[in-house]
């Protein structure tokens, strides 16, 4: 990772570059955006630069994920990054460091949730089955209690997605759970300052309904193929050396072109084994990069998944009863994928499972045979890789973001508590803080305001 990786605090920009490299207006738009963002950043509350601040977490059992467990370890953080991780005796603490005694505690990397719906965001509507131009980041409320609960669960990086009711329901967004007030500050960005996003797709029964939606699985695949075929054609045309021959900007196709070029990852909802294989077939045809999500029947096709090298993000549910295409879901999916060598992450699908209980999902996977090492990796580094963030988050190693969770004990024990959550060297959750604790355990005020019940209001005839 380059040492000059821009921080959130660096005024790279405050907005999103939505233009593809083929866009003719991209750079001017970007200049304006930077100016606007600079103005906004001055006003941003609660974002002092952490520059110069050094922290030393001392005495905990450290589970770095990328390396072996360290008993009585030390984690040194500077400027929001990890600079050293090692055994206490061999890891010197800088003189200027603030020493944080976490003796007897356990430190793990901040959890990465590859599939969340917190923040009240929305995706496409019911007007069409394919809407890749729609961005969920335009609809998320950063003040939603869901963010506070997620931090209470030890989550630090999320992929927030629109739902599965459309074949393509829109662009997902990768966020860091910084304690901030605006969407712009939550965004996870690339080196150029662009917001990192994925594309949400789905197949199976969720996205089938009355026209213009597909009524069958075959029709679902045909609609997707048609759209990606159009995107290929658009991709060819916008590369025309003769600028006058290039087509007008098409936001839908532009989004799909980013997938064709591997710059945007497809996050694909899929349950049944044949639906999973359909995704592999479309990937083969169009070459997009894909992460499969939920994968209730992945255990039936683990060999095919291993051969394709397609990563899977698994939902762990402790009880059945959702819908018929998920009837064969199993707690053992993680164990089966591990045995087959398929990269495996877990996700909350919050609100389907509660972000505060994300550790539990991995523990249940361990119950059904997954190794503890792989289960912890499935909550952290495996998910980070599925978001192309494996070099920045997901493990405790020098150079990575100082995203970490302090636990009271074993990560997979029912009585273990998330004590603190840190993002980029800042504490974003502290169980000892009464307000934070409210969101960790619940109680009056942890939800939203209750509104009066107004019968019969609204338009009348």
């Amino acid at each position, binding site marked *: 990772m380059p040492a000059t990786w821009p921080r959130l605090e660096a005024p790279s920009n405050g907005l999103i570059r939505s233009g593809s490299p083929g866009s003719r207006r991209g750079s001017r738009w970007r200049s304006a955006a930077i100016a606007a963002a600079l103005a906004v950043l001055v006003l941003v509350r609660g974002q002092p630069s952490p520059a110069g601040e050094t922290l030393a977490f001392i005495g905990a059992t450290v589970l770095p994920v990328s390396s072996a467990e360290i008993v009585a370890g030390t984690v040194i953080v500077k400027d929001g990054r990890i600079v050293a991780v090692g055994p206490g005796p061999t890891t010197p603490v800088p003189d200027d460091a603030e020493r944080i005694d976490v003796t007897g505690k356990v430190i793990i990397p901040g959890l990465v949730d590859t599939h969340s719906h917190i923040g009240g965001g929305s995706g496409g509507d019911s007007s069409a089955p394919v809407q890749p131009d729609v961005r969920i980041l335009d609809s998320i409320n950063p003040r939603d209690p869901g963010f506070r609960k997620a931090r209470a669960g030890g989550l630090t990086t999320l992929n927030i997605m629109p739902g599965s009711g459309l074949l393509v329901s829109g662009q997902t967004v990768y966020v860091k759970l910084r304690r901030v007030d605006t969407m712009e500050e939550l965004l996870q960005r690339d080196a150029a300052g662009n917001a990192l996003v994925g594309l949400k797709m789905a197949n199976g029964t969720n996205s089938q309904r009355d026209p213009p939606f597909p009524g069958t699985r075959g029709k679902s695949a045909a609609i997707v193929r048609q759209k990606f075929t159009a995107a290929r054609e658009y991709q060819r045309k916008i590369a025309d050396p003769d600028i006058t021959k290039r087509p007008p900007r098409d936001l839908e196709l532009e989004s799909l072109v980013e997938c064709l070029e591997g710059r945007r990852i497809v996050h694909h909802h899929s349950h049944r084994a044949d639906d999973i294989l359909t995704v592999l077939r479309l990937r083969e045809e169009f070459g997009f990069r894909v992460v499969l999500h939920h994968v209730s029947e992945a255990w039936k096709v683990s060999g095919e998944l291993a051969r394709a090298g397609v990563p899977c993000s698994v939902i762990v549910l402790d009880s059945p009863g*959702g819908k018929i295409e998920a009837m064969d879901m*199993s707690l053992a999916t993680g164990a089966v994928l591990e045995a087959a060598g398929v990269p495996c992450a877990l996700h909350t699908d919050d609100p389907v499972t509660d972000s505060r209980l994300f550790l539990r999902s991995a523990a249940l996977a*361990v119950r059904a045979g997954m190794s503890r090492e792989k289960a912890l990796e499935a909550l952290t580094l495996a998910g980070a890789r599925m978001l192309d963030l494996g070099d920045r988050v997901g493990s405790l190693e020098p150079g990575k973001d100082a995203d970490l969770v302090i636990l009271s004990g074993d990560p997979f024990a*029912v*009585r273990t508590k998330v004590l603190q959550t840190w993002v980029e060297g800042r504490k974003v959750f502290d169980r000892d803080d009464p307000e934070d604790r409210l969101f960790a355990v619940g109680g009056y005020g942890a939800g939203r305001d209750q509104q009066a019940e107004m019968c019969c209001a609204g338009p009348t005839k």
Partner: protein
Amino acid sequence: MSDKAPRSTIRFFAVGLAAALFVFAADPATAAGETLAIHGRIIHTMAGDPITDGVVVVTDGRIVAVGAAATVAVPADARVLRAAVVTPGLVDAHCVVGLAGYLNQDHDQDQLDATEPVQPELRAVDAYNSRERLVEWVRGFGVTTLHTGHAPGALVSGQTMVVKTAGTATVLKATAMVAVTLGDAGRAQGDKKAPGTRAKSVAMLRTELAKGAEYRRKQADPDVEKRPAPDLRLDVLARIVAGEWPLLVTANRATDIEAALRVAEEFGIRIVLDSAAESHLLIDRIRAAGVPVILHPTMKRSGAGEAENASFETAATLRKAGIPMALQSGYESYVPKTRVVLFEAGVASANGLSIQEALATVTIDAARILGVADRIGSIEPGKDADLALFDGDPFEYTTHCTGVIIDGAVVADQPR
């Protein structure tokens, strides 16, 4: 960290998966009348302190002895089972399992008829499917008794029952309670207009109870000719007014809980509060009313809606206040359709309840609230031989339920 999961566990889950999904391994049922001796490193009898290195002796479907292994005589012909921890069979104090099925399709969803807002005459026994896969699922996690029936979702949706989870479906109570829902969840559905508000729901409920009281009064007329014609609906309402059956009132917001208590006091009827997400706000009021609470699943979704102020710690709060309380697996319309009380009690045990207290919420305290503690809920001589076996702390995420016994028959013997 060490890999504690034995490879055999993986093999069971992975290789035996398909088989296990459809038929719960081989039929492990023992012959009726067989004598069992179940050794446990810890036996939580729920009738006194846990016993270390204990044994439970079972004959003819009943518990005949329990105590320290050194003090209990085990018949020579007994089949011996061993477990790290033995508990009473778990009691799910409220669910819709068996009326609601695994697939969540119309054909296996009989928990709610939304055609009318008030239907107390609907009996749970007429809709319970003992061979439903969802019953088998919860049984695999140690649940031996269900309080199941008509779901929240209508003002008066129907009756509930208490039944064991074995395929033979021993019915402990054909009618246990009558389900009432207040608040948003109890509003009329479809093209029905009433009840459309909280206040209207309460008014309608009071009207129904008044009708029941009137019917009861007239049925008592010494002149048989003057008694009204039999009416199934009014008969149920009359029994409620008479105190024969309690209302199971699903009410999450404090407003609705207060309304339920107000109605109970007006008519002098018995009620049990159900779900009660905001019960932690009304501790003194509920305790003064002497009303038990069948609390929502600890992990109930709290993101939005009437349970948004739910707390992981409510079970502990109620317990500390001395309010009779049990945990339920509940009912949700989407994933998961039902939950498993073993898991819900586990999370409660991590949020203020001791292991013993958490176990009580899904064993003896649940049995007491359901009025079946004379038969189930603890490991004591004379009680039904319903037991759950575990390979560790029952509430640890990574512990397995290794055996389930109902009426002395082993109904599950694979690690779950």
